[in-house]
Structures are given as C-alpha cells and as structure tokens.
C-alpha cells in the first residue's frame, strides 16, 4: 500500500504534509470563501428570528471551540434554525455567496469535526430537537437531528424501548451529530452500528435541495442507499435534518460484572468465553488498564473497586428479559472464569447503585483525562494480537514523560489509546513522538486509524493509512458532486 501512495503524486504531497503539520497547525484559509458582512446577517435574520442569529462574541465563543479546548475557530456567526426549510434557505444562500459552513450538533466530537477551522459560519442544530413520532409496533422513532441522545432515551424508556446507541456524552450529544460521525459507543457489540440502525435520513445538500430519504422501513432495496452516504460523512456531504431509527425493546434484566486480570491474554480468553457462554445476553465488553482507573479515582467520587491493583480491568454487561435465565447463564460463565483462574478479583452488580458505579469507572475516563491537561487521543481498530501492544510500545517510548493509557470497546476490537501530559498545553514535540508512528503501526497491521471518532480536522492527512488512493479519489468525486463549491465543513475529512 505504501508504494502505491508514493507513486501517486498528489498523495506524495500529502505524505510530506504529515511530517510538516501536526494537528495543532491549521491548513490556511481558502481565499475563495466569502467573508460575511452585515447584509448577510440581515438576510439570515429575515429567515430566522432574531434570537436564532448569534453575533455577540461572548455568545459565539462556546461554539468556536471543542470541549477538549484542542480545536478553535474564529467564526463570528451562529445560526440556529428550527426547521428543515430554514436550513435549506440558509445553505442555498451560502452556496451562492460561497460562504463556508460548519454544521454543529452537541459539539462533543473528539476530532475537531464540529468546530470551524477558520471563520466558517456555525449552523447549530440545537433548536431542531423535536421527536416527531414513534411506532410502537415496529419500534421506529423519527426525530429532528438536534435531539439530544439522552432525551430520545427518556422518551423511549417508558414506552419499553431503548436507543441502540449509547455514549459517555449522551447527555449533550445530538442524534444528528452521532449519525454524521457514525459514532460507535458501548452498545455496538449488541445492536450493531448506525449503518444498520438508521432506517432513514432527511438531509439538505449544499445547494439547499432537500433529500428526503426518511424511510421508516426495515427493508427498502430500491437503488443506491443514499442515506448511508450521510452516515459518517461528518457534515461534508449535507446537513442531516431528520433521522428515523429502529429501536430495540428495553431489556428488563441487567447485570454488570467488573473483573481484574493480570495479563491481556486472559482478557482475550474471557472475551471469547463471554461471547460463547453469554451469547445473546452479552451487551458490553469493555476494558481499561490500571492507569485509567488511577486517573478516574483522582477526579471522580468513586471508590477503588478492589484492594488488589491489577493491570487490567474488564466490565461486562448482560441485558435480557428474563432474570432467571440470565443469572443461570451468568453463573455458569462466572464459575468458568473463576475456576480457570482467568480473573484475580471480581464483583457483580445487580442493583442500580453499583451498576452505575461500575459504569462510571469506564465512562468517566475521557472526562477525567480532560481534567488533567492535554490529551492526545487515538481511536484505533486493531487485531486482537496487537491490541494492547501499541499501548506498551508507546509507554516505553515516553519513558514516563507522559501518561499512556489504554481502554475501549475490546469486544469490538476498538482501542482508545490516550496519551496525557498533565498540566501542559498541546506540544509539537509530543505530537512528533506519536505521529505518524501510531498511524504507521496501525496501518501495518491492517487496522483502522479511526474506529469510531471519525476524521474531522485531526486526520484528513492520515486518511491514506486506512484507505487506498482509489478509495480516496472516489470519495473526492462524491464530495465534488454533492458540494461542488466545497462550502460544507471544509478542511475536514478529505486531504487537499
């Protein structure tokens, strides 16, 4: 693959860029984009009401920066439409004026995809937060794209259904952003990804045309499945305004086990046993190493689960509909891993208090690391044999100069490699120690450099590590067809 890349002239250029640019260095502003003036603002105020056009720098500030304070733009305008038609009018105008636009959901992304790189205007979907319908027979829910994920869950829960996607950021992230990012999360192991669970999408293209693919059908095999293009395109192909999603019945019997292991090989063995012995009730298999636990303990109100510290912690969740059936399966599994000395310590939570305490250990890692200082985040898919090796390699490389931690959805082969430098800003020297090494390592084992976070503004120049030049070429021509003026989320996803 590498030889192919070097043969290709365009990509050769981008390969050089990899060495020269680190993530904190921005691509230059493209001068083809118009800068906004008062006339533009007046126009937008006519489309929306005055409360939905934010120009005061203090109002705009929060939209310009991501929550990690890693990416920051200089936009001076935020638009908050309420309807698809308003989005359409805004984009049509921007397309004619060549004004660049960044669509923004809950702004909880991890790769800088939802904040402007320069002065792109921010199209916030936050006010498009209506749940429009739910079919209690099929379990299909339809809502506007700005609906907060947790609100969909609270809406479905009394009806006996649950959302098939669950993330640490559920309280702020929005479904449209989740879909645009093709976010993964904890339940992917059980319910599969968004490409399977999203049944329909309504989106607005750069020229303002509304693409209505808002099907609520499980099976619809008519021509190209256009909605799939929007899933994971990170707002570069269109702005998602509505989604319909199939939701599963909410499990009534939930158990969470927390276990410690003294080697990663044992984690792998437990994973295969969990898959075969728990089968249909297995709903999460997460792992975190001891340094993760230490960071969480330093920042959260949680207790160290066991007196005996071990290098690896596993969280296993089962969800089902019959307590007796589930606990029988679970008991057999627990006895098997105990009798074969696969675990050092373990505990099982059946009440909500302990269930949430165990989940907190896993779910607050990202937030806790963020409180320490700069965090260099890598979201990799790797084969099981190399899964944890990269963490150890990086730990040796940094020799204590940074805190290298590994956690993630081991059940899905997805590692979150995080390198944290407490009380320090983002530094070029640290980036240079990580990149492109981590990407090259991942690529050489045929892994993915972005398992679930997306590409955003962090990784366009690294896309080639996971996608062939022909694939990237095809992506570019799709982008060109759907957004010929390149006004939607520029500088992101695709390399120049």
């Amino acid at each position, binding site marked *: 693959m590498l030889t192919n890349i070097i043969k290709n002239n365009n990509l050769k250029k981008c390969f050089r860029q990899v060495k020269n640019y680190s993530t904190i260095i921005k691509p230059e502003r493209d001068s083809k984009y118009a800068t906004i003036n008062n006339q533009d603002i007046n126009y937008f105020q006519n489309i929306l009401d005055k409360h939905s056009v934010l120009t005061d720098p203090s109002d705009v500030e929060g939209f310009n920066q991501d929550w990690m304070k890693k990416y920051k733009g200089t936009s001076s305008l935020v638009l908050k439409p309420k309807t698809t038609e308003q989005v359409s009018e805004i984009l049509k105008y921007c397309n004619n004026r060549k004004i660049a636009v960044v669509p923004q959901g809950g702004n909880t992304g991890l790769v800088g995809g939802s904040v402007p790189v320069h002065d792109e205007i921010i199209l916030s979907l936050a006010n498009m937060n209506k749940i429009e319908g739910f079919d209690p027979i099929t379990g299909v829910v339809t809502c506007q794209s700005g609906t907060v994920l947790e609100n969909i869950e609270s809406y479905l829960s009394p009806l006996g259904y649950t959302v098939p996607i669950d993330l640490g950021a559920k309280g702020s992230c929005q479904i449209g952003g989740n879909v645009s990012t093709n976010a993964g999360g904890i339940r992917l192991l059980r319910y599969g990804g968004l490409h399977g669970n999203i049944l329909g999408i309504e989106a607005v293209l750069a020229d303002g045309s509304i693409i209505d693919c808002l099907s609520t059908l499980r099976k619809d095999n008519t021509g190209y499945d256009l909605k799939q293009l929007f899933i994971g395109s990170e707002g570069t192909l269109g702005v998602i305004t509505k989604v319909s999603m199939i939701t599963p019945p909410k499990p*009534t019997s939930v158990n969470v086990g927390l276990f410690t292991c003294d080697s990663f090989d044992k984690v792998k063995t437990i994973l295969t046993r969990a898959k075969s012995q728990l089968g249909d009730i297995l709903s999460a298999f997460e792992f975190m190493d001891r340094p993760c636990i230490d960071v969480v303990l330093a920042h959260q109100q949680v*207790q160290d*689960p066991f007196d005996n510290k071990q290098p690896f912690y596993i969280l296993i969740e089962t969800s089902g509909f019959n307590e007796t059936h589930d606990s029988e399966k679970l008991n057999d599994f627990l*006895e098997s891993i105990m009798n074969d000395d696969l675990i050092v310590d*373990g*505990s*099982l*939570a059946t009440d*909500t208090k302990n269930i949430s305490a165990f989940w907190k250990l896993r779910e607050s890692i990202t937030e806790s690391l963020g409180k320490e200082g700069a965090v260099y985040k890598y979201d990799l898919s790797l084969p099981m044999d190399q899964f944890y090796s990269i963490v150890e390699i990086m730990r040796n490389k940094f020799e204590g100069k940074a805190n290298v931690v590994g956690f993630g959805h081991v059940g899905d082969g997805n590692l979150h490699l995080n390198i944290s430098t407490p009380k320090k800003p983002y530094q070029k020297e640290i980036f240079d120690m990580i990149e492109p090494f981590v990407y090259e390592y991942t690529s050489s084992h045929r892994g993915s450099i972005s398992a679930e976070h997306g590409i955003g503004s962090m990784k366009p120049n690294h896309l080639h590590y996971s996608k062939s030049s022909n694939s990237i070429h095809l992506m570019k021509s799709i982008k060109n067809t759907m957004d010929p003026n390149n006004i939607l989320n520029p500088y992101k996803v695709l390399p120049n």
Partner: protein
Amino acid sequence: MKILVPIKRVVDYAVKIRVKSDKSGVETANVKMSMNPFDEIAVEEAIRLKEKGIAKEIAAVSMGPKQSQETIRTAIAMGADTGIHVETDKELQPLAVAKLLQKLVETEKPQLIILGKQAIDDDCNQTAQMLAGLLNWPQATFASKVDIKDDKVHVTREIDGGLETLSMKLPAIVSCDLRLNEPRYAKLQNIMKSKKAQLNVLTPEKLGVDTTSHLSTVSVEEPPKRKGGVKVENIDQVVEGLKKNALI
C-alpha cells in the same frame, strides 16, 4: 460479640415509582428491587467491626416475601456470617418488624443491632426507636461514626450546627446515616458462595408474633405534576407575576 443487622428489600432507588391504579400502594410487580441503601451501610459497618476484631459474628435478618432471601444473600456476599429470613407475604409495619426483631434477640442474643435509619420506600424511620423501646436498650440514631471500646459504644451524629457524640452501654441499637461509610463491592467468590448459603427460615407464626396492622392506607397519590414555566419579556413582568401569585 454478635451483631444483628436487619435489612429490607425495597424498590431500587433509581426506579421511577408508579402508583398502583387502585391507589392502594406503589407498583412492585416487575420492578427492580435492591437492599435499602441505609441497611447496606449498616452491613458494611458490622463487617468493619468484625474486621477490627470487635465483633465475632454477624447475622443478617430480613422480613418479607421469598425474594427477600436474595437481599440476605447480598449481605452474606458482603461479609455477614449467617442469614435469617422471616417469611411473610403480608405487609409489615415498623411496629410488627420491631416485635419480630425483639423475638429474634431472645434467640440470637446479639450485643449490638445496627440498621439503616430508614427504608427508602416508606421513609418511616421508626424501627430502631420502637425496638429500643421494646427491648429497653439504649439507642443512638443517625450515626455518622461508630466507635466501640470495652462495653461502650460512642456514636457521632450529624445534627444542626455540628456534631453530637453519644456514649452508651452495650447491648445497644445504632441506626445509620448516609455518611457513616461507603459499602464495599461484594467479591465474586463470596457472591458465588452466598448463593449456596443455608438460611434460617422462620415465620411470624413460629415466632409467635401478631403482625396485624393497626393502620390502614386510605389512598396513595402521586405528587402533583409540575406546571411548565412561562417566558416573560422584561423585569416588570417578572415582578408583576411574582406579586400576582403572592410569592413576594
């Protein structure tokens, strides 16, 4: 020294409580149940006293339907030595519970009874006090710290404006407040063992206690639904609204 820890199986604290359609009580069918969190603190405190070598044996006791045995097993998994189940499908009120406990004290002969200050389902906060009255034992309620030296218990309680420390002679009753300790997670090995533990199963009849309730429930109602707020344009309207609703 032997410690008796009465524990109650209650609707899990995270469950949204629903009132039964006939208003006779709250819905408990197909609802997640757990150990009353205050009782869990009591179990933890008893285990800590055992770990310090002060207590020799911990007996956990629960009263109610068959499923209460799960709660007893949870206490055993945490570290209680034995479990007693007083099985009844009738609803028990604090006085009946206290009378049953009084009977158990005769056979179990504990020196100390530690229990939660209240159960999160009925919020009665009466069992410890009633039991102390029936046994004529000293009591310290709402404990946030418990120290035992020789035959004396020193209990610190959080009261308005500071801390109060009581001292009483054993045998005694202590009811636990939230900040007494943080309960441990039961170890998997012990969870598995607890599933096979033999429980001492009794009934109110066997203990010769009349559990007939002297109180009857007239009606159980949900709290009134919160009304949505209104948006106002300016300060004057805020003041006007407050005056109109007699809030200032």
